[in-house]
């Protein structure tokens, strides 16, 4: 096996090269996740309100876990609303992202012609622009006396005083779409660009309309790219709390990320934050395995 992996005498070389990175990932990515578990199933110091981790799974104390669980499904479900909201907002925002990103990616891949390069550059530009700057831009535009309200009032003709930033779910969802859509366009573009133009032209030559070509050829061929791009945008959105804080700041729109952010620095509630972190991890494990499998399939096809 080792001989097949390269020139002779390299058996020790590859493990040696990989080792520092593997140790890093193990110590600073995998092990800290266990620390989160140890704190979630650990105790809380009664005086200092500091978390006391319990390392041995046999001695794990489920008090903090049950506290969170009871307030999700129990009679006083004050965490439930935020969890439901997370699912609704992230689902809605991901679908809207797809609705915006698909036509743009399709146009860039198929019809942009010699404008493809500059267009791609413009589509990638939001990557280089700080996320916070993009949100700050919208905070400015959506102020009560901001440009949006002024445009809507058409120069003072109408009296528009909409408070966009006071806990409107629509503002939060659109903010998420604005923030994450660039991350969707790229994998979609890569997938659509790989579809041979001849396939689509053949469908049209055989008499399929635009819509039929899309429904029966383009869409099925692009489905893997759609799945990957949905995962790449919706998983990071799950942990988002800053978009919400900047564009709404109201507890009426808070999501699971806000629950984590609000409890992680509060003495005595660290275990709760750990529970929500583990919940995100559990929810994203299956989509992540799908993602890993699909990237592996992608490289297999390429090689």
């Amino acid at each position: 096996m080792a001989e097949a992996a390269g020139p002779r005498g390299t058996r020790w070389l590859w493990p040696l090269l990989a080792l520092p990175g593997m140790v890093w990932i193990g110590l600073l990515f995998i092990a800290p996740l266990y620390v989160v578990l140890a704190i979630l199933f650990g105790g809380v110091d009664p005086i200092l309100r500091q978390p006391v981790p319990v390392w041995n799974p046999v001695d794990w104390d489920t008090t903090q876990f049950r506290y969170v669980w009871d307030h999700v499904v129990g009679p006083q479900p004050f965490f439930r609303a935020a969890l439901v909201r997370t699912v609704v907002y992230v689902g809605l925002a991901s679908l809207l992202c797809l609705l915006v990103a698909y036509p743009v990616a399709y146009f860039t891949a198929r019809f942009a012609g010699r404008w493809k390069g500059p267009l791609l550059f413009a589509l990638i530009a939001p990557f280089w622009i700080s996320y916070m700057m993009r949100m700050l831009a919208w905070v400015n535009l959506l102020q009560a006396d901001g440009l949006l309200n002024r445009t809507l009032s058409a120069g003072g003709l109408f009296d528009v005083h909409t408070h966009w930033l006071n806990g409107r779910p629509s503002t939060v969802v659109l903010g998420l779409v604005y923030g994450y859509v660039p991350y969707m366009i790229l994998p979609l573009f890569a997938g659509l660009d790989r579809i041979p133009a001849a396939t689509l032209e053949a469908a049209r030559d055989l008499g399929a309309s635009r819509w039929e070509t899309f429904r029966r050829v383009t869409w099925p061929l692009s489905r893997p790219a759609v799945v990957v791009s949905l995962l790449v945008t919706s998983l990071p959105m799950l942990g988002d709390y800053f978009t919400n804080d900047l564009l709404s700041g109201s507890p009426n729109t808070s999501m699971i990320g806000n629950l984590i952010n609000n409890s992680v620095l509060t003495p005595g509630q660290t275990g709760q934050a750990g529970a929500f972190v583990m919940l995100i991890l559990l929810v994203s494990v299956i989509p992540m395995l799908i993602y890993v499998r699909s990237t592996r399939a992608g490289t297999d096809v390429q090689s």
Partner: protein
Amino acid sequence: MRGLFGWWRDPWRRPWGLLLVTVLYLAWSLLPVLVAALFSFNAGRSRTTWQGFSMRWYYGDPLRSVWHDASLHTALTHTLWLGVVATAVTIPLGVAMALGLDRWRGPLPAGANLAVLVSFVLPEILIAVSLLFVVTVLTTPLKLGTSGQVIGLVTYQLSYPVVIVRARLLTIGRDYEEAAVDLGASPFGAVRRVLLRMLVPAIFASAVLVFADVIDDFVIVRYLSGDSSTEPVSVKVYDTARAAPTPALNALTTLLLLASLLAVVIGFLAYRWFTRGEKEGRGLDVFTGEA
């Protein structure tokens, strides 16, 4: 609509609808940022009413301009410093790991590869919170502040060089390396003098990506920041955007935008320069491959 207009029936008409969507999308995605950058040059305090052009918020204002307000320019320099240090640690670590994982077969490297791919899509808040717990609950050498931030950022960014370099390794193949060894190079020499040289464009591309992503980072650097002197620009924006910020905040983010634009332009030019011989290289590749 259908049947009312002749052009609709033309099966080869231009996709005006798609063009329109794309143009509207670009306007929607870029105009707000342009407006924000424009208002950093506002002469007045307002971020919504234009009061004339000035450089007041960059260096003119003796108290609140980016140049004179210590909390603003330390945020900027700290952000750039984090970008440089985190990139300098991530790239060697990631490139070595990519080389190792690409050639070393077995369950252990396969598991490490899975962990890297997972950290690529995992919500950042998981890494941030778990590292915060490690720092605050355990007694480890890990401390809040610059060192903690760098360690968190490297953990999160490591997947970039690994994924990019491995993709490039796939297209390079084994031939060059084996040829070098046949001609008498040691295995390590073949990696250093042949493979690494061919990987330079990929290494450079991932360095630019990591740098741009690090100076944009928010979640990790916020949780792992020690005091206000280690708060980067993103945290500054988060803390003050909903309070009563001055256009100095816009100026700060515009400067950061210029920094990453500069990194991208340098990266692009360098990439072009490194791959200038690519055409000949590929020709040779095909030539030897076919022969």
